[in-house]
């Protein structure tokens, strides 16, 4: 009896430190976004107006969708290196077929989502490493995009361009889209019972399998969702740029991974944070504007993204270490 009580007393602070760690980690993405926003406000207060935010954040919409696509894949312990070239491919389809022949264009985009879902199934079935499978798909989508649109060009469908340039009242569209996206995925993945199953496929696949769930189904669904959000990313991107080229989505693979990690996600264990991922995507987008206001050459744009990533991870490592030690 005595030892039991003792054990419980010992466990209590551990639990407390764990909740502290969790809330600190959840706050970290918000903190980094706030820091970037503060920097912008200090250097150029006018940028934080409706129009300024709209301008700075609108490229954050496709990044946020791409980040969400990556988040679904990372939830089941996989990594998608092909999302960037997939977005290029989607962009090329949107700027050509979707405008001239909407039915055919839609069919191709749906086929793309099906290919993604199929990849999930195949990766599970063959027990193949997703890094290599999606590496193959990287070349595949890139090739398809070049075949479709050998030279930069095409034109966004009129409705798409109008939709993405919608002037929402009070709050700029990118923020509305980001908030809706974050809340919908957060609810679906973190609050519904099937969302828990989907995350469990990354957290403890063996337990899930023993409980009678089909792992192949969860992987198929998650990759299918990644394909769907990849399509949404490509759609919004072309709506913003109004024309496409075969390399338009190139940087999105790394951006999406960085967004998920910045947002508090982990590589393994099904530990993700959808709201944080959207914040992470917006932070990376705004970082570019901040550099601009600081008159730092655009040469350092990607470097700053890397540096932000390292600083956030360092902060996270610090939180983990201090919170892990008994208080």
């Amino acid at each position, binding site marked *: 009896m005595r030892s039991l009580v003792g054990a419980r007393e010992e466990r209590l602070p551990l639990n407390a430190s764990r909740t502290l760690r969790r809330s600190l980690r959840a706050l970290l993405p918000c903190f980094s976004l706030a820091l970037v926003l503060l920097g912008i406000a200090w250097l150029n207060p006018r940028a934080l107006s409706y129009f300024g935010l709209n301008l700075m954040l609108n490229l954050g919409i496709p990044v946020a969708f791409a980040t969400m696509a990556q988040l679904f894949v990372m939830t089941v312990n996989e990594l998608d290196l092909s999302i960037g070239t997939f977005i290029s491919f989607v962009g090329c389809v949107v700027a050509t077929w979707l405008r001239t022949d909407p039915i055919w264009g839609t069919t191709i985009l749906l086929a793309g989502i099906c290919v993604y879902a199929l990849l999930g199934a195949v990766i599970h079935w063959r027990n193949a490493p997703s890094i290599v*499978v999606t590496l193959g798909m990287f070349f595949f989508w890139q090739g398809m995009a070049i075949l479709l649109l050998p030279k930069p060009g095409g034109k966004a469908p009129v409705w798409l361009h109008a939709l993405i340039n919608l002037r929402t009242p009070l709050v700029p569209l990118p923020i509305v889209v980001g908030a809706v996206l974050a809340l919908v995925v957060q609810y679906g993945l973190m609050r519904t019972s099937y969302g828990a199953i989907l995350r469990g496929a990354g957290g403890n696949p063996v337990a899930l399998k023993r409980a009678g769930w089909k792992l192949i189904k969860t992987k198929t669904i998650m990759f299918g969702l990644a394909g769907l959000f990849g399509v949404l990313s490509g759609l919004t991107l072309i709506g913003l740029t109004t024309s496409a080229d075969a390399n338009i989505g190139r940087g999105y693979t790394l951006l999406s991974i960085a967004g998920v*990690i910045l947002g508090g996600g982990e*590589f393994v264990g099904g530990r993700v944070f959808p709201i944080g991922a959207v914040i992470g995507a917006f932070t990376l987008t705004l970082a570019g504007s901040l550099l601009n206001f600081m008159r730092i050459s655009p040469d350092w744009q990607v470097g700053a993204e890397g540096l932000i990533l390292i600083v956030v991870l360092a902060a996270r490592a610090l939180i983990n270490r201090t919170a892990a030690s008994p208080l």
Partner: protein
Amino acid sequence: MKARGALVRDWSWAWSYVGAFLVWLAAIIFTRGYGAGGMLTGGLALAAFSVLTAIAQMFVITLGPGNVDLSLPANIGLASAIAMKVMGGSDAMILLGIFAALGAGLVVGLGNYLLIWLLRIPPIIATLSANFIIQSVGISYGRGLQVKPPPAFAAFTTARFLSISILAIGTAVFTVVMGLCLHRTVFGRGVLAIGQNARAAWLAGVAVERTRLFTYTLSGALGGVCGALLAGYFRGSSLEIGEEYLLVSIACVVIGGTSVTGGKANLLGLWGSALFLVLLLTMLNTFGVSAGVRLVVTGLVILGVILAAGGQKTLR
């Protein structure tokens, strides 16, 4: 002993040579034998670059799940710029330029390891962030850089001995050295042991952190040297020069029979898969297909190989 037995019995790497031979055969049947030798010798020279980066990537990947060097492309690009700038087109500075590129690579590798070790973050994210930063340094450093390699250096990178590229011969010798290093030295065996089971390796007294440090530094250094050589071969540096080598190095490692989950490496297979990939491109070029088709076929081939080989992992 058991591990060595498994190594001897596993012939999966041989398929890469079969594949390389088949695509070469298809290409020369198409051209009715014309240029058969030229394809091979040209292929060998290009394959040497792939093998150099693939050796770096293979050591890293063998360290176990999550270990991959994503900073190779930026590292190669920066090193090529540094080498060209230091050489400044003068033959007298060639050695110094190569050492500068090597040094830059060493620093990159060391930096990667420090990020992994200090922040305890997955190597994939550490090297990804490093890639971002090195890329920026490279853009800033190499802006407007239009330096041609010194004539002697350019001649060296394309020189041939008995019609075989000197670079290919040098890389072949280096492959043998690295093979000995992997299977016969404490360091190499440490890499394999960590890949099989890091905790068991640590308990068995393997200097885990030191081995990781050496591996990432080795990868960085190889990337640096490769950057200098590429700049000589292609008559000038560019930041995009290393871009394709991230994917090529990983593809070579996987097709060549090295386990993606670590602990099992194969150097012989690297040459087979590098030749296979290079000759595949040569074949598609002789067929006269467009760049798009070339990429689609490359992607499908990588996909096909990994899906065909994927089942083996469950057998282990």
